[in-house]
């Protein structure tokens, strides 16, 4: 290594750097490119083994999209997912925001421990709890309805959100609330009128991440919901978009694309805030 000059070493390093990035980016993102191209390829092109699969050999088509939107319950699933997401986000915020605040400000050291404990519940896997929960859901008469997952999802979104929010609240200096209380506000008023407005970006991050957690969930949805009309997107697409044993790959891939890209964009926009909350929360 010492034999190479500084500048040639730098060029070599640059080339290796780019090769690494390209390889990883291709491997990680390729399936989505594949979803994209499959969605718009004519069926005859798609199933013709002689054609180069990486390009459009015939003109692109919207037939798969039309099938998806007109002849399947895809739109219904999107609606279900949005509705479930909205409800779960609301429940999560109502419970996690005050909890995170209380654990950060009002409880001292054992509050920290409870916070860590709450976070650990996030690690309890759905594949352990789904069997008893299926019984509970059935007993409550919620089986095969969206309400079952609206009820159950907060069990993991709340721990996750509480932990994230604790990180954000911790970074707000106590003096601000002390000053407000000296000025005459009660602790709760200080919370409502001061802390929440300041933490809006943190709360927004939590909203986005909670929503993505809802859309990504599969196991509970698979367990509790059986009829197609009540499915969420994450469940309906891989499970119900097949007719018998036949996979309509074109429409299936179109559905996948639509189900993943918007979330990806949102997630990406908020990732830095998430990391900030994550590292502040864990390194203190």
């Amino acid at each position, binding site marked *: 290594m010492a034999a190479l000059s500084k500048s040639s070493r730098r060029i070599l390093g640059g080339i290796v750097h780019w090769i690494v990035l390209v390889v990883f980016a291709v491997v990680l993102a390729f399936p989505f490119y594949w979803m994209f191209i499959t969605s718009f390829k004519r069926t005859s092109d798609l199933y013709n083994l002689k054609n180069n699969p990486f390009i459009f050999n015939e003109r692109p088509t919207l037939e798969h999209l039309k099938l998806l939107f007109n002849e399947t319950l895809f739109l219904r699933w999107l609606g279900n997912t949005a509705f479930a997401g909205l409800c779960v986000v609301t429940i999560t915020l109502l419970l996690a925001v005050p909890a995170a605040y209380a*654990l950060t400000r009002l409880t001292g050291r054992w509050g920290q421990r409870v916070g860590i404990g709450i976070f650990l519940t996030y690690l309890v896997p759905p594949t352990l709890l789904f069997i008893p929960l299926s019984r509970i859901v059935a007993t409550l008469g919620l089986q095969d309805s969206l309400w079952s997952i609206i009820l159950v999802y907060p069990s993991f979104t709340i721990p996750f959100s509480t932990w994230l929010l604790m990180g954000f609240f911790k970074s707000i200096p106590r003096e601000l609330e002390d000053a407000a209380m000296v000025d005459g506000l009660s602790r709760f008023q200080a919370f409502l009128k001061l802390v929440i407005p300041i933490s809006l970006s943190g709360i927004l991050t939590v909203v986005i991440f909670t929503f993505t957690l809802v859309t990504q969930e599969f196991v509970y949805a698979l367990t509790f919901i059986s009829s197609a009309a009540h499915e969420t997107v994450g469940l309906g697409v891989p499970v119900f978009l097949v007719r018998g044993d036949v996979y309509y790959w074109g429409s299936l891939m179109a559905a996948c694309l639509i189900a993943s890209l918007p979330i990806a964009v949102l997630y990406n926009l908020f990732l830095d805030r998430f990391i900030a909350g994550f590292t502040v929360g864990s390194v203190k």
Partner: protein
Amino acid sequence: MSALGRQRWLGPAMFLPAILYVAALIGVPFALAFLYSVGDVKVASVGYHFVGLENFRSVLQSPAFRTALRNSFVFTVSSQVLVLIGATILALALKDAFRGRGFIRFLILLPWVAPVSIGSIGWKWILDSLYSVINWVLIRFHLANEFSPPMWLGEPKLAMLSVVLVHTWHMLPFATVIILAGWTALPKDIPEAAAVDGAGFFRRLFQIEIPMMRPIMNVAVLFGVIFTFTDMTVVYILTRGGPYDTTQVLPALAFFTGVLGSDLAEGAAISIFVVPLLVVVAWLMLRTAHRAEVT
């Protein structure tokens, strides 16, 4: 009511709803899982009979279970090793700013952000027995036979490999983000001191930077182990556990037995086997979390 007195009930009032909700939806089923595993509950049954370790005995004797247990370990260990190595290399490539880094980061995050089920079904199409694009490329390069190309999801060893690789693909971004965060948090002057001390690139990397990042790598690995060991989605969608149970893993087996097979007791018994692992991992996480704070 004094201001201080008011404050005392405010705290609990604010966090109790969350704690109660979580306790109800996690604690209660958790306890129930244990209860079912030592009972004889089926979906349609009404009463509850205690049967001791009967369920565990029959589970341990079933070859499907033993295969699933072994597969779970193979699946978890191999994917985690790949993820750790891959994420470290990728984080290294991403840690210094360069033009287009934001875009590359977006691409790299896609496998984690897209729902697992969606990503898995995408891969199912890529690995399809007839139309796999990978096979098309391999045949073109004469690395595979046109008339008997690799059946990625049909042959036992290949199916396991496929499942491991898809899971690695899914977990890689998350681990990368965590390790990257750890790397940017490293104090800058220590690698500089190592450079002045005479350490070249690789010595700096392996003897100074990576050892310093051990706590955060531990966190990434522990998360990964939990999410992988308890995941059933990839297997369910790609292979349904086949061919012939060769890719069956514990959580998927629990699902097939308990939910599809309606034998809640046995399903619960199977899923309980995950608990010792969880306890060990949780304990390890608490320990490394402490160490990450001290530096």
